[in-house]
């Protein structure tokens, strides 16, 4: 009984929250990030190829030395500083779903940084090489690892041109209920698939970026903010020569 009432209360709260978010400003100096851009899909309905989720990252806006996106990913998905696990693994062995990369122009010596994670390719090499079918692409373009059938061979880690995947070397105990992870399996950015499925319409990194450098949205929807931005500005795919059609695009590199 009580549980139901709480749920009802939460539902009302979030309905109100979303309605208000649409107006943008909720208090002087307080801006809510755009919520509900992605329509919540009913819980019992499968993800479909009507959507293709992606990110647009503006490396000009990405502030040097800032790692808010990495920290947000860690606490949302319970890896790195967001978990008490992986104490025995060294830096090269530890989980890494997202990292910041600094680029330097050799002519001008100008340095700038950008976040780097799974690029959610349309033609993912990690899926091509997986011997068990554990590495797969969901209908809505999210590339995931099915840890139930992953045998930990790490072919996908070698195949990935973006060095986006990592392997878990030790027993874990401090996982998030939404993000199962365990020893002997490969993992990478899930594009916060649990948040997408519950209709949050954003990812932890996009939510946490105070510089608005990360924009989440539906690449298949011509009216989504991400599509409009990509029509307005020149964007790049990293290693576009591989013809992977990545779901994560960059500006300013």
């Amino acid at each position, binding site marked *: 009984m009580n549980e139901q009432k709480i749920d009802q209360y939460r539902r009302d709260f979030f309905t109100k929250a979303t309605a208000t978010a649409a107006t943008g400003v909720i208090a002087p100096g307080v801006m809510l990030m755009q919520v509900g851009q992605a329509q919540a899909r009913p819980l019992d309905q499968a993800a479909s190829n009507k959507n293709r989720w992606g990110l647009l990252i503006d490396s000009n806006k990405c502030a040097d030395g800032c790692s808010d996106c990495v920290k947000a990913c860690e606490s949302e998905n319970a890896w790195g500083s967001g978990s008490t696990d992986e104490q025995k693994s060294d830096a090269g062995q530890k989980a890494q779903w997202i990292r910041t990369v600094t680029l330097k122009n050799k002519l001008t010596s100008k340095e700038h940084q950008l976040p780097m994670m799974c690029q959610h390719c349309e033609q993912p090499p990690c899926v091509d090489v997986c011997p068990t079918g554990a590495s797969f692409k969901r209908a809505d373009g999210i590339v995931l690892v099915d840890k139930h059938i992953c045998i930990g061979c790490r072919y996908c880690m070698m195949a990935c041109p973006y060095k986006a995947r990592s392997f878990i070397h030790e027993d874990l105990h401090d996982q998030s209920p939404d993000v199962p992870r365990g020893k002997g399996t490969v993992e990478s950015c899930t594009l916060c698939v649990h948040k997408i499925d519950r209709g949050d319409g954003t990812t932890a990194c996009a939510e*946490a970026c105070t510089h608005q450098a990360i924009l989440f949205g539906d690449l298949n929807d011509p009216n989504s903010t991400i599509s409009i931005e990509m029509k307005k500005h020149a964007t790049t795919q990293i290693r576009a020569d591989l013809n992977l059609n990545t779901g994560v695009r960059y500006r300013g590199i």
Partner: protein
Amino acid sequence: MFAQPVTSKWVLATTNPANLGVIVKQIRNLFIFLTLSLVMSGSVMADSVGPELKINRANGDKCVLPADEMRKDHMKHLQHQRDDTMRDGIRTEKFSLKECINCHANKDEADKYIPVNAPGEFCQSCHAYTSVKLDCFECHATKPRDTAFHPIVSDKMKAFADVHDAPKTKSMLDTIAAKAGAK
């Protein structure tokens, strides 16, 4: 001439009259055993078989299916749901492992959750009794956790909550629910 084929101990015994007394004894013992088990079966209910389970009735009195079905088939349902969730993103609550744990994780005296795979806890007690290895929790969380938001996000949520006079903590939500329940 045909040698009698020896098919069992019984045949062997019947061929030898000296063993007749043994057979009578064995038949008598069988009768006693059958009678006893008939008498016992009336008093042995399914619920008293196996370990005593710690079930938190405060979370509700009913599982998603009757207990005998869950005992037999919980893994079938979980496995079906697992593929739906993993491959298609279908996250209905009925057979979700996360919901099992939300309901079946118990708290200790310090009001902290005990992992469901700890000795004597809901999942582990039966699995230890039947000596079936419990693999789920090599990857899945063993206790509920309030959805974690990054501090940057939760600060914004707090600001929002202040403006809209909404409850900020779970205990406040519980208080509201308790009041509503009292009415």
